[in-house]
């Protein structure tokens, strides 16, 4: 009889792996995968954290949050109308000093933007806040607007993490794939949700057989945003084959040895940040510092009702 597991994530966040089968991600990736980097594919087996690994005292974690404050419509002179989106987004860095036992917000910034394709739209200024206009190319359908916010948020995350780190080479954990952040030094991308299967069926068995704290050998992805990658199982999962599994990547500019060293460090560092299911709807993948950071950032975004009312007032005033 098949064993069943309830996914630890709150259903509204989707699942920790996006696919149909309960065994894991279903859609296979067409990417070129080189699995012979650390050990030959035939010898793949779970790797324990080695005792000799350097455990960094200070870990930086970056994340951003966004919220759509209001949807707007413009009325142009020629009678046409464009959709607009007033959004707030914030990015922050947590500096976890594990030796001293203090986690603090090393930097955070909130920005607000009015995303629209309207050529005549102007910056919205209310008493307290300012929505800078971010003009989009093309027709700017309402459904495309939310995705226009993401590049801005990533940009802000980059800025903030550069400032907060201040040149140190402590480990930086970026939420999500690295993509265009691959130039950051000593940085790993942390992928919570497994949408694609990169490995062959035989090697996926190694992934699902990982015990908490163990990782797979490093492999190389040959995609556009590819690079070195490996899987890690965090403690606190439900025991389902793919629960608690995260994929971690680092810059393809590194040598294989450097990538393996980062993989070792991640295996020693990340498990202690894993969250527990009753506290976080996306446990254990949503790391504790990230959850705390998101809470702080959401607080900094301001009260949604107040902002919505302020926007309503500001637009009403501009019409008269």
């Amino acid at each position, binding site marked *: 009889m098949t064993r069943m597991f309830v996914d630890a994530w709150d259903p509204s966040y989707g699942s920790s792996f996006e696919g149909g089968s309960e065994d894991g991600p279903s859609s296979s990736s067409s990417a070129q995968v080189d699995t012979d980097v650390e050990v030959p594919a035939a010898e793949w087996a779970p790797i324990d954290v080695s005792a000799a690994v350097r455990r960094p005292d200070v870990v930086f974690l970056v994340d951003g949050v966004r919220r759509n404050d209001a949807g707007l419509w413009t009325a142009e002179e020629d009678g046409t109308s464009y959709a607009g989106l007033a959004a707030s987004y914030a990015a922050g860095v947590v500096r976890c000093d594990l030796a001293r036992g203090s986690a603090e917000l090393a930097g955070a910034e909130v920005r607000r933007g009015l995303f629209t394709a309207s050529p005549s739209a102007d910056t919205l200024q209310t008493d307290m806040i300012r929505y800078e206009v971010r003009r989009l190319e093309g027709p700017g359908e309402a459904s495309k607007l939310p995705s226009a916010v993401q590049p801005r948020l990533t940009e802000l995350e980059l800025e903030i993490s550069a400032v907060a780190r201040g040149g140190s080479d402590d480990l930086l954990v970026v939420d999500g794939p690295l993509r265009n952040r691959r130039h950051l030094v000593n940085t790993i991308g942390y992928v919570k949700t497994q949408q694609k299967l990169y490995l062959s069926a035989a090697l996926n068995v190694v992934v699902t057989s990982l015990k908490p704290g163990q990782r797979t050998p490093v492999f190389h992805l040959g995609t556009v945003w590819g690079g070195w990658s490996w899987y890690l199982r965090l403690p606190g999962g439900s025991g389902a084959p793919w629960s608690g599994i995260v994929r971690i990547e680092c810059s393809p500019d590194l040598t294989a040895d450097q990538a393996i060293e980062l993989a070792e460090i991640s295996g020693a560092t990340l498990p202690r940040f894993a969250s527990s299911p009753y506290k976080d709807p996306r446990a254990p993948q949503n790391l504790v510092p990230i*959850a*705390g950071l998101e809470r702080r950032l959401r607080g900094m975004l301001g009260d949604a009702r107040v902002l919505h009312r302020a926007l309503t007032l500001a637009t009403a005033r501009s019409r008269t």
Partner: protein
Amino acid sequence: MIGVSDETSPVGRVLGTADATPLQFWTAVAPGSYLQLDDVVVTKRELPDREPVTIAGVVTQVRARHEGAQFDSDVFAIAEGTLPALVQEAAEITTTRVDPELYVPPAPGAVVHRATGAARDAALHFDRMERRIPMGTGRDGVPVFLNADFLDGTRGAHVSISGISGVATKTSFATFLLYSVFRSGQLGADGANARALIFNVKGEDLLFLDHPNTKLDEPTMANYKLLELPATPFSDVRVYAPPRAGDSSGAPDVSSRLTGVDAFYWTLEEFCDKKLLPYVFADADDERQQYTMVVHSVTAHLNRYATPAEGGISIDGRRISSYGDLVDHVVEQLTDDDTRSTWAGSAINMGTVNAFARRLIGSKRDLSRLIRGDLASRRPHQIKTAESAQVTVVDLHNLPDRAQRFVVGVTLKTEFEEKEKAGTGRPLLFVVLDELNKYAPREGTSPIKEVLLDIAERGRSLGVILIGAQQTASEVERRIVTNSAIRVVGRLDPAEAARPEYGFLPPAMRQRALLARPGTMFVNQPDIPVPLCVEFPFPAWATRKSESGPPPSSTLRSIVQSADPFAVVGGRGAADDDIPF
């Protein structure tokens, strides 16, 4: 107008997540700053078309919490360094003064300053006190004052001190307050001429008021200096003690203080002449007791027929020279059918007489050393503050309960009558009485309670100020407590602290009173809306034999007493306990 001077440092801002009201508001404490309970702070509120309102208050509660933590266990993640969180402190401020009196709430976000100097004085209303008596220092180490108007009878009088025995330091605070009245010079001539009558109930603690304290150290001296008081013992003290039991010479019954102690007693003649018999019975005025009628008729009979006879009295042709003889005679006369009606009236039945006789006989053992017929009546033996020193200490600690009541009742009645006769409120007389709940209990009546009630209600105009102390204010006659303008609380019993008598304490302070250290008191005075936490200095006078310095020369009544007969000639003053060879 309270000044927010530039020197005062900002410590935080008024919170916006809790209601700010004109009388109470919360302040978020800025990082790197702190506020403790009792700190004085001040903030400003700008108003359109008016001068700004300055709101001053004291901290009545402080709290700290992790912001960004959702679960109790998050604290471990935060301490480990994995969860970012902020420690935020907040302080509850209870307003003490609004100037000008425009009761608007402070605006959330307004900067809150720590008040120092003139701003602090203004916040605590010290600037409005014309005469201010130092009581000790606040938690911030700066003096706090008592408005003399509420002590000397100008606008109020009487002090009520409550607290657990032993740790609440009630008597110490009372004596320190007296010392401050006498020595601060704030009361002018009234302070210098004032008299104090102190009843010493426990141990021989108060018998060394005029001896310097050898344990006085530098910090304590500095404390006295800060309060602008000299660190010296009381200068003019006279101590009265009861005669030793069974001693025919009437020598005072004290063991540690050897010089400057006088014996007090009443002669039989005074006992009869001044109608002191009712004070023998604690509940003589209780209407439910039949025998009180007998008490009053016997008192009247003794007053009318007793004639002085060389120390003792003579009545019905018999010479009586001791209290025991008097009791025997009275009981004999009352039980005799022929004489009973002349002593007690005609409508008295035997049961009532027996009730009276039983109590009277019971008093023989306790009172015979105090009511004497064998000592010369010319010898000074009466407690009279007007003819005594500035401070008169009456030692009761060796006396049984009934005798204590008798002494307190009679002494207070005599003093109060003297004051009534004089008809003026000056000089002031401070009466310090511990265990007030024993002398003026909430239930029932007695002649002593009547005297104390008289003092509480009329003493203010006659210049008699009662400084009463008790473990439980809830057990003291309510009229005495309510007539006290100044209420002081030391450490309280938890059950006692919950009673309405302590309603003047805000909830947080009530909780603090449960763990107040010795030397810490909470003082409530009428013109400051919040009780002040006061730490009064260690006494500059000795409180026991072991810490007492040399006695003042005025107490050495003869050359014999000034030289220690046991001192080794040429010896270097070895410690008392040393073996002399």
